């Protein structure tokens, strides 16, 4: 295990999934790899948590899921963002930015 890899911060997994899927529909492993790539390996997604979160988001109505043929002709469950999901992403992103900004200001002030 690599110490520099951190588990996804509690509560941000949903936002990461929504953000990733806002680029294009993809399957579970795709999401996981994309998150790792974009965060340059800072976040590593545990497949169990990811698949559970996908179920939860689907039930909440933010994702659609469908078994499809992938480009390399394997069957995979492809997730895509719904309209409600896009809205949710905006809400969560705004919320996150507000918090992150607040924390950043706090840290600056301490120096």
């Amino acid at each position, binding site marked *: 295990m690599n110490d520099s890899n951190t588990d996804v911060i509690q509560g941000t997994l949903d936002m990461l999934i929504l953000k990733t899927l806002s680029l294009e529909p993809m*399957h579970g492993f795709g999401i996981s790899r994309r998150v790792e790539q974009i965060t340059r390996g800072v976040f590593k997604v545990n497949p169990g948590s990811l698949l559970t979160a996908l179920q939860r988001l689907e039930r*909440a109505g933010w994702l659609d899921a469908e078994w499809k043929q992938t480009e390399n002709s394997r069957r995979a469950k492809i997730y895509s963002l719904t309209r409600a999901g896009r809205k949710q992403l905006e809400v969560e992103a705004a919320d996150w930015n507000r918090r992150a900004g607040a924390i950043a200001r706090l840290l600056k002030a301490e120096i």
Partner: protein
Amino acid sequence: MSLLRHISRGLRGLFIQGSKDAEIAAEVQQYFDEAVAAGIERGLTRDEAERVARAEIGNLAPVREQVRSYGWENAVRTWMMDLRYAMRQLRRNRGFAAVSVITLALGIGASTAIFSVVNPILLSPLPYPSPSRLMMIWNTYQGARFELSFATYRELLARNRSFESMAVFDSGDGLGNATLQGNGLPERLEGQRVSWNYFQVLGVSPSLGRDFQASEDIFHGPKVAILSDRLWQRKFQGDPRMIGRSIRLDGENYTVIGIMPRSFDNVLQPTTEIWMPEQFDVSQLTSGSFKSWEWINHLHIVGRLKTGVTHSQAVRDLAQIASTPIAEFPRPDWGSLKQGLILESLQDDLAQTIKPTLLAIMAAVVMVLLVACVNVVNLLLARHTQREGEFAVRTALGASRGRVLRQLVTETLLLAVLGGLAGIAVAFAGVRALVSLSPPGLPRIEAISLDPAALGFALAVTTVIGLLTGLFPVVGGSRTELNRALSRSSGRTAGGRGVALRALVVTQVALAMILLVSTGLLLHSMRRLLNVDPGFNPNHLLTMVVHTSGPEYLPVSQDPRPAFAARFRFYQQAIEAVRRIPAVREAGFGIPLPLSDDPSFLGQADVQFEKDGPRGVRRSLRFGISPQFCQAMGIPLRSGRFLDERDKASAPFSALISESLARNEFPHEDPLGKRFHLGGTEGAWYTVVGIVGDIKRTSLAVNEPEAVYTDFRQSWAVESPLSFVIRTSGDPALVANAVKNAIWSVDPNQPIVRVITMERMIVSSEAERRFVLILFAAFGSVALVLAAVGIYGVLSGSVNDRMREIGVRAALGASRRDILELILRDGLYLAAVGMCIGLAGAAASSQIMQSLLFGISRLDPLTYVGVLLLLTAVAAIACAAPAWRASRVDPSVTLRAE
């Protein structure tokens, strides 16, 4: 929308379990495959790629599990798994399951049934608006409630300051009954004569038509009637055009003015089918004579307190009126109110006679429920002890304590629910049985049914039992150290929970003891009571109530004598017809009939002997009789002569007195030839011509030995209905039809009711005691059986636990006898402790049932010793089986098994 999706997906997951599992498996597999494919893309060989992917993802099974555990349906699934397992457990231990469920069912069923009966009587408010303001007002006679007269009613109405309204009604017992003619056979209807505002006081009104008006409640007022919904449906098919129509009652036309709603529960006389206004003659109140119906204590008063007036304020108000007579309202001796008035809320009033009985029964049933719960806890404890190993293994395999707890609670809840369901079935049957067994005086019987409140009660009891019995062993049990439990294959020690078990058994024995002592005391009381000499000979005695119905029999005119004469003529001819039947030896008529439910105001009279002067008035029983009444009843003549055909209206008035009255009034003289006034200090003198034996009037348990007997021809009134008493040579029940036909040969229109042999009447006069006795006997035997099962269970478990110890003892030379004694002593010790506690409990609790006992001390030593012996015997039997098994232990087998 998302909630809907949650539910639908969840349900799909639950019911199409396989497909969901397969989908998750496929997705996890695909994730792995993609990871491998990604590795190959990076230039790894397939083997290397798979290894890397596996290192990253880990074993696929836990991933699948994690994904699968998401969603509410998953909690349901685990719970169903627990449930299935619990059912398997119960199926595997059929005996245990059956005993627990039956025990619970009996306990819950019995308590629910009793609660259903008690609830409408004692707890739930009466079905009227602001029922707490409804009060009953009573006259007092020797501290007990007694009827009032119309005159008293008018006085209270005028002088009170506490009541918003006050209504008067007949005391029931058939005074308001009427015969409905036309429409086929004449039918006797149960009626109630009420003052016009009766329904208004209760706060109800007819659902169709209108209520009585004040202008209708006057002497010779219009003949109007209000029907019950039941009568309206039964006789008139619910025809709304009945309003304003005329029906024929007792030979007269009455106009139907209203129908009461179906929901109306007439708690004061529940089986009433028709109401008519009282129509008293107000002018009689100022006539200066007290000799009219208006002055007779035969009425009940129900009143509605003004808002804000308390019970004690009203009591003071009434007491003040009672103690200060005013000239405007003259009072006869019997209406002097010298003993005060009794004011009681309607609800308490209804429950008054039955309350101690119900409380005793409630206490008993709570004890049965307790014994039942104790038994189930016992059984569960014993089983958990046996299953300690299983739990230890589960915990060792990774089950959390909470998980084990949940499993246990599920199991016990399942038991409790099964017991509860069976209990509800028992309760249904129980309520039916209770209603059919119930004594005639039970109020609000119409409202008794397995009501939702009682069902809720049953469910609450079930749940509490489930949780308690589930948690109780766990709290004691789960803390068991894993190692100790695992390493222990058979018990070496009698663990700490043994103490709990023992305490429970002791409780059980104590409770059974209390119930059995109560049953024993009641049984003795009943036996003594039925052995009491009623003072007459009840064998071969047929009784019936014969009415006179028709306008010629109603003393409504200023001069009631023709009506009384007509009544007497009819009764005279009827009894002569009866005497012509060959199987009839003697026959007479009279009122009141001893040990019948004739109303209490009948047969009370003031007697004033000549020697005592006008102030020496004493209250006594008074029987109006025909010649041969005493002979037919078998009341013995002590001296003088019986009344006979000589005692005509024109002859000097003669009377019989009872021997107690004779002894108390004339301790040193011969009473024969002495004279007295009846019902006041004036009028004709009655001369004592004979002295007869004392008899019981209202109940075998009540001593009212002072009585006078006069002939109807020498009385100012001839009551109706009267009771016929017929002494027969054979079985009296066989003569009943011949007697009825003989009476109808005189006049076919006169109703005859309550045809019953005196022997049966005596039994039914003790119906309430019998009712309690039956219930206590039932509860007592259930408790006894449960206690026996409890003792057996605990000893049996303890023998299992001590198998090795017993083996060692046997190996070291203990004889079978020694071991038998060891176990027996153990069990009997428990029983003895329980009995000691039970003894104290029984002595204390027998106070509750004091009022139900007769002729026996509540500490009757014979009963207590008898119950002790019975319990000891049963305990010994319950101990015998495990002790026998212990004595058969083969040391070589037991010791090798370790």
